[in-house]
């Protein structure tokens, strides 16, 4: 893995904003005193007059974004997932979701891979919160290529979008010439007939590695990358469940309310299938280097491999 290029998707976020800033003059970026960490500072350098630092006041920032969107701008609200989806949940629901305003929420530092800052800053609940809001699009990109494509798709989509970015540098897996990002469409990265792994975010590359480990044991795993958790690509998931029987969901998020729950919601109704949810098991995170935490919480390739073996 050492020779694989790794980039944190928060970096991709900042780069994409700066890249599309010229093409979309209505694009306004808001931050809450975290521009250096969310990487919106990259946009600020290119378009200082369109970067609005709201200070440490996320609820107000979301409301300001609502006002900007109501008057024709395309605002990107930026903060850590904890303070965007968490603290400002109700502002997002009532001031953005309900009026269906064209606000984009770029939430960085999601999940336990925040690392050393520990549990207060490790948001494992944002996908659950955001997917309950009617009309909200929820995207969790797996790598640099997908993260940039997600930003562009969010700009072009009219309506509220939540995009989840990470702090930890993750392998670039989508750097292929025919890469195409389609909102609401999952991507089958690996075919397999014995079981399906449905993964999202940084767990996608780990799941691909896990599938290789399973292969050595003679187990043929299909791997699906779900970058858009809402709307979910139900067609793809139902077909995979029918084809392989067993489904494993993998996410750096609580097993309550995230991708696993979304997949269960879909399959329980349309193709009842045993689903094993791999994620953060209804616990808070803790301090430590991100890579070690991902391992400790069983979300690295080995952890995923073990959990699948245990449940076959």
């Amino acid at each position, binding site marked *: 893995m050492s020779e694989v290029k790794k980039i944190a998707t928060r970096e991709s976020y900042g780069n994409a904003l700066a890249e599309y800033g010229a093409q979309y003059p209505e694009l306004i970026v808001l931050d809450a005193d975290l521009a250096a960490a969310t990487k919106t500072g990259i946009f600020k350098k290119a378009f200082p007059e369109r970067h609005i630092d*709201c200070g440490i006041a996320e609820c107000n920032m*979301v409301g300001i974004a*609502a006002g900007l969107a109501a*008057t024709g701008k395309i605002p990107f609200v930026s903060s850590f997932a904890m303070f965007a989806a968490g603290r400002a949940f109700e502002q997002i629901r009532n001031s953005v979701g309900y009026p269906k305003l064209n606000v984009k929420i770029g939430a960085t530092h999601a999940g336990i891979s925040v690392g050393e800052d520990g549990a207060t800053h490790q948001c494992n609940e944002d996908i659950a919160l955001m997917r309950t809001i009617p009309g909200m699009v929820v995207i969790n990109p797996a790598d640099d290529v997908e993260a940039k494509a997600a930003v562009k798709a969010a700009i072009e989509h009219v309506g509220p979008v939540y995009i989840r970015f990470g702090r930890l540098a993750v392998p670039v897996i989508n750097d292929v010439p025919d890469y195409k990002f389609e909102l609401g469409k999952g991507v089958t990265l690996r075919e397999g007939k014995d079981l399906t792994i449905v993964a999202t975010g940084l767990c996608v590359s780990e799941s691909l590695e896990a599938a290789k480990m399973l292969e050595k044991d003679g187990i043929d795993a299909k791997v699906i990358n779900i970058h858009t958790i809402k709307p979910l690509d139900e067609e793809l998931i139902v077909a995979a469940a029918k084809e392989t029987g067993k489904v494993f969901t993998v996410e750096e998020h609580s097993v309550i309310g995230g991708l696993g729950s979304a997949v269960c919601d879909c399959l329980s109704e349309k193709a009842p299938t045993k689903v094993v949810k791999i994620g953060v098991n209804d616990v808070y995170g803790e301090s430590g280097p991100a890579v070690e935490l991902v391992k400790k919480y069983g979300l690295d390739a080995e952890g995923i491999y073990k959990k699948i073996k245990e449940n076959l």
Partner: protein
Amino acid sequence: MNNVELQKTANEVRKGIITAVHSAKSGHPGGSLSAADIFTYLYFEEMNVDSKNPEKADRDRFVLSKGHVAPGLYATLALKGFFPVEDLETLRHVGSYLQGHPDKKHIPGVDMSSGSLGQGISAAVGMALSAKLSGDEYRTYTLLGDGEIQEGQVWEAAMFAGARKLDNLVVIVDNNGLQIDGAIEDVCSPYPIDKKFEAFHFNVINVDAHNFDELRAAFKAARECKGMPTAIIAKSIKGKGVSFMENQASWHGSAPNDEQFKQAMEELEKVGATLCQK
């Protein structure tokens, strides 16, 4: 409009409020009535709006941050011609576009959905910022309750507006002194309101919310003030215009029964008749 015309219009707004809330059998008459003169002045004198073209780009914006007094806003919009006055009777009914709290998606003339206290002012600040960013001339107005300013988000928004010198923004506080649980100073005093906004770099003007000369002077001064947003602290009477509702916290969020409705309308009719003789 001269003051008598404004008073007549405000009286019609009050009749609309009572009619709507009575028909809904729920809603918030007290704070709607206290703000009726403010609504009237904004829509019939101050703001650049066109009921025939509610979405026109250069219109002034209004955000009802104290969204529960929607009956006051709806009655004003209806009288201004945004939608039929008869529709006020559908307030809060299943299937009606006149939702209990303002819904921008479905109500002509409503610039922002609101109702969860403390949030509307932020959206108004965003609209004012938006105008500054693109050099637009429109102005943004937002009406807050004096209980509402207990919400921390109000002060986040005020800090931002003051720091960014948003002189195209006018924040109006309907200071009727009462909230659901009682007098605002007994529940959790926000006083002194004017000094607080001054500290957040606002141009602060204290007025009598029911005096059109004072409202006129305040909004004129707000237009003339450069380099800082304006806060108009409007001392009002909750339930103003209906004798048994005045200064009663209990009328914050309850509807009149048929008998009370009749009495309220008779009182307002009488006021209307007197104004017609002027």
